[in-house]
Structures are given as C-alpha cells and as structure tokens.
C-alpha cells in the first residue's frame, strides 16, 4: 500500500533516492549485524552502484550508514573524511555479484567486523529509497527495514520459535512477520523476526542468554 509520506519523502541528502538514501539505509542495516560501527568493512559494489556510485555519493552514503548516520544527516557529505579521521578500515571493491535479473542492478555486499564478530550482508536499493536485504551470512532473507528486525542463529531445537515468541510477547512486542530457515535438518536455524515495537537491548540480551541461541542482533527500522 502506498503511503502519502512515501511520496512526499523521505527527507534526505541528495542526489538520488536509490543511490544515496537507499545506500545509507543498507549501511545502517549492516551496522546492526555487528551491534555498532564496524572497525573493518569490505564493501563490494555491483552493477549501477559500481558504475555511477561515486557520482551519486553511494560510497559516502554507505559509509555514513555504517557509522550510524540516517539518510537526512548532512555528515554523509564528508563521511569518507570522518571515516578516515576515526581510523576505520573500510575498503571498496567493484565486482559482479551475479547475473540480472537474479541480482538487482543496485546491489552491495558488506562484510563487516566489530569486536571479533564478522557478518556478511547482501542487499539492494529498489528505488525511492526502499531497500531489501537479500542475504545474511549465507542465509537467504527478505528484510526491508520497514520494521524493527531481530535476526538470530540458533541450534535447531524443538519449541525454539514458541520460546522466542513468548519472550517477545512477555515484553509487549508484537510480531509482524517471522521467517525460519535452516540449511539442513538438525543444523543451525536462522530466524528473521520483524516486530512492531522497537525491542530494547535487554530483549536482545534475553534472547542471547538462551543456551541454544548462537547469536542474535537487532536491526533498527530504517524507513518511515
């Protein structure tokens, strides 16, 4: 459903809703996978992101997002300088991540590292600032950033979904969507849960405290 505020918005640093605002949102989402600004990152740009990204400030917007800047934050303009000043080790590469239409022309793969944890996220910018995360650590996902999202990897134990759902409802958090995938029976289960209310860090930590949960992160809502 189209919203008036999608049409009259977003408020953003120019010049392109897909190449700048969308890129910033992808950076913000990748940041969530390591729980803060990565110390090290590899940003692999595909298609139009690789071809016209520099002219559109896609590099600055991605870096700004990784540092926690929102699409309307004017620090995006000088994000590369700030990155250098902060001593962050971010590197860009132009690459081909696959054939269209399987891979969207505005796609980036971000490998982010912080405090000993590494995560790989692939996502694309769909136009008008809308984004889609398509892969996290090799698991296929569909995360839009239109909701607050919890992602977690857990051992494939019975009742895990019920336990997590109970924990969220105990904290008065309503689940909008829930998707469970695993690579093989008994292997790790990968859960993506989109929720209506912003989950507190204590909720994330409670999930982490479950003995069968290997890791869990909270991705902030990046649109609307």
């Amino acid at each position: 459903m189209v919203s008036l505020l999608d049409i009259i918005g977003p408020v953003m640093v120019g010049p392109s809703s897909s190449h700048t605002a969308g890129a910033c949102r992808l950076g913000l989402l990748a940041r969530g996978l390591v729980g803060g600004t990565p110390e090290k990152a590899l940003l692999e740009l595909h298609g139009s992101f690789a071809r016209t990204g520099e002219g559109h400030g896609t590099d600055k917007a991605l870096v700004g997002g990784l540092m926690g800047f929102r699409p309307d934050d004017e620090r995006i303009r000088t994000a590369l300088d700030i990155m250098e000043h902060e001593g962050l080790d971010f590197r860009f590469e132009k690459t081909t991540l696959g054939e269209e239409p399987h891979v969207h022309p505005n796609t980036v793969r971000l490998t982010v590292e912080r405090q000993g944890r590494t995560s790989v996220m692939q996502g694309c910018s769909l136009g008008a600032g809308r984004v889609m995360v398509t892969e996290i650590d090799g698991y296929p996902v569909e995360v839009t950033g239109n909701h607050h999202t919890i992602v977690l990897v857990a051992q494939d134990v019975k009742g895990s979904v019920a336990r997590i759902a109970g924990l969220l409802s105990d904290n008065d958090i309503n689940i909008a969507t829930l998707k469970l995938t695993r690579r093989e029976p008994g292997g790790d289960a990968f859960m993506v849960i989109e929720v209506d209310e912003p989950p507190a860090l204590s909720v994330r930590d409670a999930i982490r405290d479950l003995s069968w949960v290997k890791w869990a992160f909270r991705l902030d809502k990046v649109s609307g």
Partner: protein
Amino acid sequence: MFTSLLDAVVAAEAQGATLAAVALAAEAKDQGRPVAEIRAALARALDVMRGAIAEGMTGEHRSNSGLVGGDAAKLRTGPAGPLAGTPFRDVLARALAVQEVNAAMGVIVAAPTAGGAGVLPGVLTGLAAAQQVPDDRVVDALATAGLIGAVIAERASLSGAEGGCQAETGAAAAMAAGAAVEMLGGTPRQAYHATALAQQGTLGLVCDPLGGLVELPCVFRNATGAAIALAAIEMAMAGVEFAIPADEVIDVMGEIGKEMDVRYRETAGGGLAATPTGRRLAKERLVQIKRS
C-alpha cells in the same frame, strides 16, 4: 490510499470536501495514524523544502562533477527577461534551487523522487508566496500532491529507470498542478483537469542524464517541469477541461514507459547523455569525481 484519482474527486464532491481532506482521511485509516501526525510530517517536509530553496538561491552550490549549480541565483539576480518580476520566473528559480542543492548532496525532500524534487516545492511555495497563501493550506496541498503521486505510483511508475523522466519530473508536474489548483481555491474537478493537463504535456519524456548522474539535464527538467505545471494550473483555473481523464493519461504514461527503450531509462545510453558533447562531458567529469 486511492488508486483512482477520479474516485478521490467523486468522494470529495460527495462530502463537499477537498482532495486534501479525503487524502488525509484515507492515509490516517491506512496507516493507523492520526491526521494531525501526518500533517506534522508534511509540515516538516515543507520546512525542508523551503530550506533547500534558500540554500539554492545563494548560488554557492556546485554538483560533485561541477556540471550544474548557480543558475537559480541567475534567475534571482540576473538580467531581466520578458517574465521578470512575475511568479513564473520565481517558480523557475525555486525549482532550480532545490535541484541544485540536491545535486550538491544537500538536504531535500524526495517528492516524488530526489531527481524530481524541485518541481513541487518550486510551484507550491512560489505560488503561495505570490498569493499570500497561509502555511496550513500549503501543507494541505502537499497532501493533495501525495494523493496524486500515490495514484501514479499505483497505476504507472515514479521511477526514471522504469518509466523515463515522464515518471519523475512529469509525475511531479502532475502532482504540483493538481495540488496548486486546490491550494489556490480551485475545485477537486479543476485539480483533476490540471493533473491531466500537466501529465499529458510530459508524455514520452525520456530519462537521459549525462553519466547517469542526477545533474544534467535533471536540474533543468525540474524548471521546465514546473513551467508545464504552471501552464496546466492557469488553464484549469480558467475553466479549461482536458477530454482524456487524468487516470487514463496516467495509465498511458505507464504504458509508454514500459515500451521505452532501456537507453532512455536512466542508463545514460541514449538521449542527451549519448550526444557527442554529453559523452565528452560525462567522461571528463567522472574522471574529476574520482580525483576529488
């Protein structure tokens, strides 16, 4: 939200309401948010639009590549043309100003997109200043514009990569025309005709930016898009009607977009981007961006 502009006009007429009022009511219902909250978000958008205009008018902004910038200031302080001192010239200057700020990575409102972000603020704030329209009516006009844009998004497209520039500055002109007519006291039906008149004037318009950058001709397309909106507003408020309904004009814009060769959809493969000068400038300027 409505998927037919005619449905919205009929609903407004039946209630004796404005298009803005039916749009705000529909949005409040869809999103489960109070109207006051939606209007507050639109008021913030209006503030950002005015901020971008003020920035752009200083003439101090150059795009990353240096291809565009400084032309809004020329219309403000440069030599007079036949339309000097009229709202027309002021609207052109405002549309250029926003788009120059956008090209320089300044803060704008994507309305409907960043590439077409100059038309709506140029037309609405320019005419509001000329006619001393209070801000709450300009905010209402943004709601009307959002309604028209939502209908276009649903029936056609708001993306140059999908539908050419007719779907970006063309759609922006249609939104601005309908919204301004209502803001200036026209009826929902007149706004409907203004929307059709503006969109028909942009049918077939290609998206052909040099080097794929939102700079040239995008900045100028926003000014000429605003001019088409002004033509549509003037005609509709004089009682001119367009025989093809706005919904059908929007539908055909979408169909033309689908049939448009990929060279004319933001890929820099055709149009002005593929002219000898266009290719040369893009090559020179992209090298410059890499050095900076």
